[in-house]
């Protein structure tokens, strides 16, 4: 229990720092802005209380906002992501439900399950984020391309991160 908390606190700090110090500055042509920090919410254990997921989403967004001077922007989209997590988990639940010893990673839950889980949530988050950022519909297409490209990029980074940091599960 304590180990899980410590692990998640460290993950929070590392992801936020990696986001604001490195990812926010790579700037590939204005179309690719990955937001890897959402991985923190994605990787919370299955048995995390629902209200805690929401609150953590709020804190996570607020922290990123503090660094990037975009007060409210990341907060709004992260809370939305945290809210949707519960429903997506329910939607794509395995037939026997979730085993509490399992973690939401692609090594443990399988590639297809994790891709569906991460892709839907990342897309929802990026969609909210970019449209809140631009705050108008006149550049709908331009923004939509940004959403799609950035979502794909974030997903690739999520898989790379999990590949590097999650040990394969012995069966």
């Amino acid at each position, binding site marked *: 229990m304590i180990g899980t908390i410590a692990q998640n606190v460290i993950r929070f700090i590392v992801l936020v*720092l990696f986001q*604001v*110090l490195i990812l*926010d*500055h790579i*700037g590939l042509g*204005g179309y690719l*802005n990955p937001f890897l920090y959402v991985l923190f919410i994605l990787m919370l254990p299955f048995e995390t209380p*629902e*209200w805690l997921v*929401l*609150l953590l*989403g*709020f804190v996570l*967004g*607020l922290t990123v*906002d*503090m*660094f*990037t*001077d*975009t*007060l*409210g*922007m990341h*907060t*709004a989209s992260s*809370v*939305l992501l*945290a*809210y949707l997590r*519960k429903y997506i988990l329910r939607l794509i639940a395995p037939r026997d439900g979730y085993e509490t010893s399992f973690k939401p990673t692609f090594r443990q839950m399988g590639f297809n399950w994790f891709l569906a889980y991460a892709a839907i949530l990342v897309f929802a988050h990026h969609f909210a984020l970019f449209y*809140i*950022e*631009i*705050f108008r519909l006149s*550049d709908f297409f*331009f923004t939509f391309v940004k959403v799609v490209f950035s979502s794909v990029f974030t997903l690739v980074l999520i898989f790379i991160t999990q590949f590097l940091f999650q040990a394969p599960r012995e069966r």
Partner: protein
Amino acid sequence: MRNLFLFLVKNYYFFLFLFLESIAILLLVRNNSFQRASFINSSNAISGRVYETWSGFTDYLHLRQSNELLAKENADLRNKLKTSLVDYTIRPVQVNDTVFKQKYFFISAKVVNNSVDRQTNYLTLNRGANQGVKRLMGVICGDGVVGIVQEVSDNFCTVRSVLHRRVNVPAMLKKYGENSMVSWDGRDQTIGRMERVPSQLKIVKGDTVITSPYSTIFPEGIMIGTVEEITAEQGKTFNDLTVRYSTPFSKLSYVYIVNNIFQEEQTKLEEETLSKDKPQ
């Protein structure tokens, strides 16, 4: 009452979501109209320190570029020195300048954080109230305009970059002295727009765009960029121009904060005039 209570408890998840989301939206809306009175921005103690420490590492990667830039700027300043000496001897009237008060006062600052990819781009500088920085001071670099100071903490300030949808820079064409505004449309970080330029002016690609004397924030004649493209429509009296910024926004490391000593006096007088102008 009991039923209402049960309803709230049953759907607490949704209401908690609604509550947190409303706070976020509230922050967002307030933040858009005025970014004041909040400690949650990158000039606060935590994020300021983090950015400064990090910039201490990454600065080494840009030493070469910074040196080149500084050397170039030294050369520019040297040139200006010489020409001003010549001016004094040719037009002795200008010697009177020395009895007038200094109008601008420059504070050098280091960029400790910078963004160019968003719709609303900001910089964080390592100078704040302790060094005499105030809100709405201009920020320039050797190559051109950079932005306007927004928030000030004790030792840091955040700067709204020229690459921000709500920043308009009073500008003029150096060749004609025609005044207008340069704004940014949020797409290309190297391109700005200058609107409503009279179409009878013979503007060509490469014409210089500088800050106009009408700005209380920037000194007159600071480079903004060069004309990139002219969208001329038949029969229209005004054209729109696109301007290629001369400032390398993604590579900024040292900048100058401009303190216009008369800014407050001028804006106050102008506001007073406007308020007295209302119909009685």
